[in-house]
C-alpha cells in the first residue's frame, strides 16, 4: 500500500477523503436534515405522522415573543461578554508583556480557566452566587453594599452569567495577544521612544495598532463561541428564572429534547445556524477589508 502508484497519483483526493466523508455524514447531512424538518410540523411525542407545513413553522416561531427574546438575549450576552473579555484580556496582555520572575507560572494560571470543565465551573459559581451561603453576597455585605440576587432574579441573571463567561475566557484573549506581542519587532517602539514619545503615546499609536490584527482574530474566535454558549447557562440556570436567561441555544435544546417539537426546534436551529454563519462571514469580510 505504501508503494502503490494509484494511491500516490490520487493522494490529494484519497488522503483527505475519509475525513471528508466523515464530516459530510455527521455534519452536512444532519444540517440538511434539520433544514428539511424545519418545513414540517413533526412532533416526536404526539405520535402524529410527519406532515409538510411549508413556511408555517417559520411564521409561527419567528413571530413568537419567546423566540425574539432569545435572539435578543443571545446578542446581549455575546456583545457584553466579548467586549469585556477583549478589554480586560488586552489590558492584561499589555501588563504581562515584559520579562518578570514567575512569568511562566502566570501563563500556566491563565490556562487553567480555559481547560476547566464549563459545567463544573458553572456549578462552582452557583455556590459562589448563592444568596444565603454564597461568598458573593458576603463580600458585598462586608463592604456595606446591598446584596445581589445574582442568578436567582430575572434582572441580574444575564450579567451574572456574563461574569462567569468573562472569568473563563478572558485569559484566552490575553494568551493570544501575548503571543502576538511576542512576535512584534522592537524597532518601531524604540524609534518612537527616541523621538520622545511618551509610554502612553507609544502604546496607543505604535503597539496597539501593530497587534490589532491579532486582537481582532481573538475577538472573532470568542464571538463565534459566545453566540453558542450553552454549558454554563444550562448548568447554572437552565434558561431561568422563567425564561430570563434563555438564549437561542438553550431554546433550541428545550424545543428538541424537552418538548420534542422537532419541526419548530428545527426552525430555531436553522436560525441559530444562520446567525453564527452570517456573523462569522461578516466579521471575516470586515477584517479582510480593514487589513492592508
Amino acid at each position, binding site marked *: 500500500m505504501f508503494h502503490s502508484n494509484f494511491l500516490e497519483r490520487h493522494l490529494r483526493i484519497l488522503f483527505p477523503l475519509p475525513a*471528508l466523508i466523515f*464530516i459530510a455524514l455527521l455534519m452536512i447531512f444532519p444540517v440538511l*436534515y434539520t433544514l428539511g424538518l424545519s418545513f414540517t410540523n413533526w412532533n416526536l411525542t404526539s405520535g402524529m405522522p410527519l406532515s409538510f407545513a411549508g413556511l408555517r413553522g417559520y411564521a409561527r416561531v419567528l413571530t413568537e415573543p419567546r423566540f425574539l427574546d432569545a435572539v435578543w438575549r443571545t446578542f446581549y450576552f455575546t456583545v457584553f461578554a466579548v467586549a469585556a473579555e477583549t478589554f480586560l484580556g488586552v489590558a492584561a496582555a499589555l*501588563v504581562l508583556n515584559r520579562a518578570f520572575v514567575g512569568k511562566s507560572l502566570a501563563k500556566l494560571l491563565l490556562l487553567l480557566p480555559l481547560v476547566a*470543565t464549563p459545567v463544573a465551573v458553572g456549578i462552582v459559581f452557583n*455556590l459562589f452566587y448563592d444568596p444565603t451561603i454564597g461568598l458573593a453576597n458576603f463580600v458585598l455585605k462586608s463592604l456595606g453594599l446591598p446584596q445581589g440576587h445574582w442568578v436567582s432574579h430575572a434582572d441580574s441573571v444575564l450579567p451574572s452569567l456574563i461574569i462567569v463567561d468573562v472569568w473563563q475566557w478572558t485569559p484566552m484573549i490575553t494568551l493570544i495577544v501575548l503571543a502576538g506581542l511576542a512576535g512584534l519587532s522592537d524597532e518601531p517602539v524604540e524609534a518612537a521612544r527616541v523621538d520622545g514619545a511618551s509610554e502612553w503615546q507609544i502604546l496607543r499609536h505604535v503597539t496597539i495598532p501593530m497587534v490589532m490584527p491579532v486582537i481582532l482574530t481573538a475577538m472573532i474566535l470568542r464571538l463565534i463561541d459566545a453566540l453558542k454558549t450553552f454549558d454554563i447557562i444550562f448548568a447554572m440556570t437552565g434558561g431561568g428564572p422563567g425564561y430570563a436567561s434563555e438564549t437561542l*441555544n438553550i431554546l433550541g435544546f428545550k424545543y428538541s429534547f424537552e418538548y420534542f417539537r422537532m419541526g419548530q426546534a428545527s426552525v430555531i436551529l436553522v436560525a441559530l445556524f444562520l446567525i453564527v454563519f452570517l456573523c462569522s462571514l461578516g466579521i471575516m469580510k470586515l477584517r479582510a477589508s480593514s487589513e492592508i
Partner: protein
Amino acid sequence: MKNRLLSNILFYLLVIVMALVVLFPFLWMLSSSFKTQVDIISWPPKILFEPTLRNYARVFEEQDFLKYFINSTIVGGLAVVFSLLLGLPAAYTISRYAQKKLAVFILLARLMPGISFLMPWYVIFSRLNLMDSYVALVLSHMLIALPIVVWIMASYFNSIPTEMEESAMVDGATRQYAFLKIILPLSGPGIITATTLSFIFSWNNFMFSQVLSMEKTKTLPIAVYNFVSYAEVDWGGVMAAAVAIMAPAIILTMIFQKYVVKGLTMGAIKG
C-alpha cells in the same frame, strides 16, 4: 530609581490581583470540597475549618464516579485516536497542496453550533438503536476532535520544509511512504498539541453526551450535572465531584503547558 521600584511594586501587585481572580474559584471549590455541610453553609464563610475526606468518599462510593471517569476516558481516547487517523492525512494534503477550501470545510465543524447536528443525530441514532452506545458518543466527540487535529496539524506540517520528503521521493520513495516514514516521525510536538487539546475538549463536552448517553455510557460532566439536580443541597459532594472532573484536564495542562498554549494561540497568530 525610586520611581522604578515603585512601578515594580505596582506591577507585582497587579499580577497578584490577576492571579487571585483567576485562582479564586478553584481555591473556593477545593476548600469547599473538604468542608462538612455544616461548615459550607455557615455564615460568615469559614476560611479555617477541619478538613474532611467524606465528600470524596461519598462521590466515589455512592455515585459510581469511577465508571463515569472510565467512560469519559474511553470516549475521549477513542475520539482522539480516530480523529488522528482521519485528520493527519487530511492535514498533510491541506498543507502540501494548499487545499484551502477543504480546510474551511472541515473547520466549519468547529464554528457551527453543535446543537444543529445534535437534534438530527438524536433522531438517527434512536432509529439505529445506537442511543447510549459508545459508537454514537465517539462519533459525536470526533466532530469536536477532528477539526482541532486538522487545524493544528495543517499548520504544523506547514512548518516542516517540503525538502524533507522531496529528497526521499527523489530516491524513489512514494509520497505516502515519505509521509509515514519521514514527516510523521518529525511531527511529535504537533501531535502532542493536537492530542492534548482535542482530548480536553472532548473531556469537557457536555451537550453531546447529555443527549446521546444514558446510564451505560454516561460521561463525567453529565454525572456532575445530575449530581446537582439530585442532591441540591449536598454542596460538599458537588464540589468534590467538580474537583474530580477538573483535575485530569488541569494535570494534562500542567504537563503539556507549552503545547497547550501553542495550540490555543497558533491559529490566531497565523490568521
